[in-house]
Each structure stands twice: as C-alpha cells, then as structure tokens.
C-alpha cells in the first residue's frame, strides 16, 4: 500500500497521465456513440451491438484496442523514471529493486482495475440505453477477460520499458507489438501454434465479436475447415495470467542484475 501511495504522489500531478486518461475516458464512449449513430448495412442493429448481452463482448473488444493509449502511458511512466534518474534515486533513498518493480506493477494493477470498472459502468450505461430485453449479466465474463488482458498488456509495456529504457524506442516497440507482432507470428508459424504465444493469447482474450459467427458461416460452406482458435477462454485467461506473472518476474530480474 505504501508503494502505491508513493506512485500516486508521482502521477497525480503528471499532466501527461491526466491527458492520456481523459482521452481514453472520452474516446471510448465516443466510439460507442458513433456506432449508435451509424447504421452498418448487413451488420447487426444498434440494439444488437450495444444492448445486453452483446455490449460486453463488443465493448471489451473495442476497449482492447483503445488500451493502446494507457499502455503507452505505462511505458512512458517506466522510462521517465530511468531518464529522470529517479528510479536510481528511489533505490538510493531506500527502496529495494523488487519494490521498484512492484510499485510499477501496482500502478499497472490499479490502472487495470480502474479501466475495467470504467468499462463495466460504460457497458451498463450503453446496455441499458440500447437494450430491448436481454440479460444484463450474460457475457459479463468478457469484462473479467478484459481485465486479465489489460493487466497482461500493461505488464508487457512495463517489461518493455524496463528492458529498452529509452521512451521513444520502448513506445515504438510497444506499438509494433500491439499492432503487428501477433499477425507476424501467425503468418510465420501458423495459427495453431501462434495462438499460444503471449501477444496472440492476450489479444484473443477479447476476440473480434463476430469471429464465431464468421467461423460458423465458413464451416457451413466448408465442413472440413479446421477450427483453430478453440482454446477454452478460461484456460486462455489462466495462461495469460501466467504470462503476466512472467513479464513481472522478467522485469525484476532484468532490473536486479543491472547497474542503475
């Protein structure tokens, strides 16, 4: 708790942090609001997209992409400590190297919880506005998967910051991983193995909402088609949690063996 308080002192007056969080908070309802205004030919109606229970899978999928912003913020927060040499000063003043990593992990955890709660509230608001029946809590497990995904992605951002140390390079690496690494892995080694890789597994926690429908249609057309992404979402969530733990442990050992 003390570590979290220390981190709060650092970020509460950090303008970039506030700016990113405001953009994130405004962008997401704007996207949802835009969806509510546009009628997509051939796509489900607004009430099907934004009403219960589909709101949970649709919202978490969209939020998964918008998570790019707070992820960049996490990279910046870690790299700032290195470029300001405050990480070094924190150790000089009495924090252990484990404390340094844990304090950042607590930020990541706090941020993930806050964003997930925001998503939950946003889902409820849009769900109640656009629902015509449908169970409120059906598909709510998507929110939990979104939390695990957010925690994993932010922990990966933390690891990148710790390893690369330079803000601009770390952010570029994070953006590259966020958008392209999964696709490159899929193209290189095929979907079957790629789905087990950390970035792909994290991305698949909040899959494209129409993925199952498209898959079903394709299987109707070609019954011999192989079903690739068939990992149980709960198993996926468990493996992603293990990957997240790995990112944090790796961050610690990178930091432990390094001169500050």
């Amino acid at each position: 708790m003390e570590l979290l308080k220390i981190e709060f002192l650092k970020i509460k007056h950090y303008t970039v942090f506030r700016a990113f969080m405001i953009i994130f908070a405004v962008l997401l309802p704007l996207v949802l609001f835009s969806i509510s205004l546009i009628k997509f030919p051939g796509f489900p109606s607004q009430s099907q997209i934004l009403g219960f229970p589909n709101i949970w899978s649709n919202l978490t999928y969209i939020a998964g992409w918008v998570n790019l912003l707070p992820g960049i913020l996490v990279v910046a927060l870690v790299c700032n400590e290195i470029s300001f040499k405050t990480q070094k000063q924190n150790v000089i003043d009495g924090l252990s190297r484990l404390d340094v990593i844990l304090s950042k992990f607590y930020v990541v955890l706090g941020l993930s919880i806050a964003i997930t709660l925001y998503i939950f509230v946003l889902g409820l608001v849009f769900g109640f506005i656009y629902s015509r029946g449908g169970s409120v809590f059906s598909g709510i497990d998507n929110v939990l998967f979104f939390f695990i995904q957010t925690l994993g992605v932010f922990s990966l951002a933390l690891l990148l910051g710790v390893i690369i140390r330079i803000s601009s390079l770390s952010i570029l690496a994070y953006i590259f991983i966020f958008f392209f690494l999964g696709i490159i892995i899929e193209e290189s080694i095929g979907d079957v193995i790629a789905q087990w890789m950390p970035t792909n597994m994290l991305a698949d926690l909040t899959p494209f909402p129409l993925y199952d429908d498209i898959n079903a249609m394709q299987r109707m057309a070609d019954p011999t088609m192989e079903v690739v992404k068939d990992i149980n979402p709960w198993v996926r969530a468990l493996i992603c949690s293990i990957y997240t733990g790995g990112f944090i442990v790796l961050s610690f050992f990178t930091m432990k063996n390094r001169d500050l």
Partner: protein
Amino acid sequence: MSETILKIENLCKNYGNLKALTNLNVEVKSGTVFGILGPNGSGKTTTLGILVGVLNASSGSFSWFGNGQEDANRRRIGTLLETPNFYPYLNAVQNLEIVAKIKRVENVTDEIQRVLQAVDLYARRLSEFRSFSLGMKQRLAIASALLGEPDVLVLDEPTNGLDPEGIAEIRSLIIDIAKEGKTIIVASHQLDEIEKICNRVLILKNGVALKESALDELTEKKRQVAISSDDLKRLEEVVATINGAHIAKSTHLELLIEVPESYSAADINKFCFENGIVLNSLKEIQKSLEDQFLEIVKK
C-alpha cells in the same frame, strides 16, 4: 571505542576488462567525516554507487551499521550521488514528499520545512524542479539527503554547481552536521573541500586505494621550513645536525628543510643561532593536502 558505521572488504568493480575498483578495504567509524579524494575516473563515484545500492559489486562485500547490505540501511543514509535526481514536473515540496515517504519520515511537513530552510530554498518550495538553476537543484538534493535526520550522509561532489557563497554555506552546513556527531562520507576532487570538511581521507587512483589516514597525519606529518642565511654552506652543515631533520630542497637563496613536528620555528631559529648562524629569513610552510595528494598520486 567508536562504533563501525561502514566496513568495506575487498570490494571490486569491473566493467568488462576495465577494473574500476580493486580490493578496496575501508572502515568508517561513527562521527568521522570521511573524505574520498581522487582525480576524475579514480573510482570515487563507483565506490559510493556500490555502497548506496545502485551498482552491483563484482566481488567483495560491505556492511552498513553491522547489518550487511539490507535495503533498509539506506533509509538511515542521506545520499547525494552525482547529479540531483528529481521529478521535473513536481515542485520542491512534492519531490521531498516522495523521498520522505520512501524513507518513512515522520512529521513530513515540518521535516520538509526544516530541510528547505537549511538549504535556503524555502521561498522556492512551490516552484517546479525543472525551473531551478543548477545550484538550486544541488541545494534541493542536499535537502533531500538531510530529510529524516539520517545517521550517515553520503555526499558526492556536494558543492558541484554552487556559486562561491553557496559553496561556503553548504560547507558550513556540513561542518555543523558533523559537529552533531553524524558520520559523513564525502567524495570530491576538490582538495580544499576535503581539507576544510574532513578529518579522515582515502586517496583513490585508478580504482586503487593509495592511502588512508587521518587528515592531520597527512598534512602535518612533514612540516617544512624555508630558511636562509648569508652562509648557506654552513647552514646546511648545522641543519644536518638537527635530529630528524633533512634538506628537502636547496637553492642559492634558501634551504627548504623538513623537520619533525616537535620542532617549532623558534626552536630552529634558536638552534641555528646557538651554532653560529644568524638566519635572514624563516618561513614555516605547512605541507598542504594538495602537496601530499599530488605526491601520493604521482608516485
């Protein structure tokens, strides 16, 4: 018998093939103002970096307060290492609040006020760190080191970037803290700084400890006296008969002689007069730390 605050045993630090520190053995007793002196690249900051946990030693060990290398030890140490490191977007008070939280300081508001006043920065307490001049940044770093009344101060080039007035103030502050019986470890390449502040000195060169002794021992052991007379040849003969004295340098105008500490200038004058020499001049030259340092480092 003073308590040992810091014990360093066979400490080494290598960067690849470069030996930045080789088998350093030092013991710092409570209440000592311990100076680490050396030219640039001698290993001063490396030594302090290892002692405050930011560098990993290649081999050897050290122990603070007899507790080994526990992270909690550092909360009892106020450190200024190299440059002042603070969050640029936070003001002085906000930055010190973070340090106070890490060090688990009680009465944070009062403590922050005390240390900011001590370094004459209280008026700028609400200014962002990024707006500070180099000297103000250095003052804030010293304030941060003083926070929570640490048992030990570790200061690396503490007067770096300060104007002459600021240098005098900070030196005076350090001397006042030393008078309270606090242990202070100061690394500097400024000989006068070490000479004014410290009572024990370690001289480092290329990562090797060349000498460690009390400052008095280093500066007073070899008192020099410059003397002249109309008959320099006779003077040389007389000096040769002084027990423990020898001629360090001889010119056609004067002799520079080294005498034991027990001989005062008056003793030498009297001795020469009793041996039939009237001295034209007699000038006592206390060998400075600079002379000693250069002598040791050039060996």
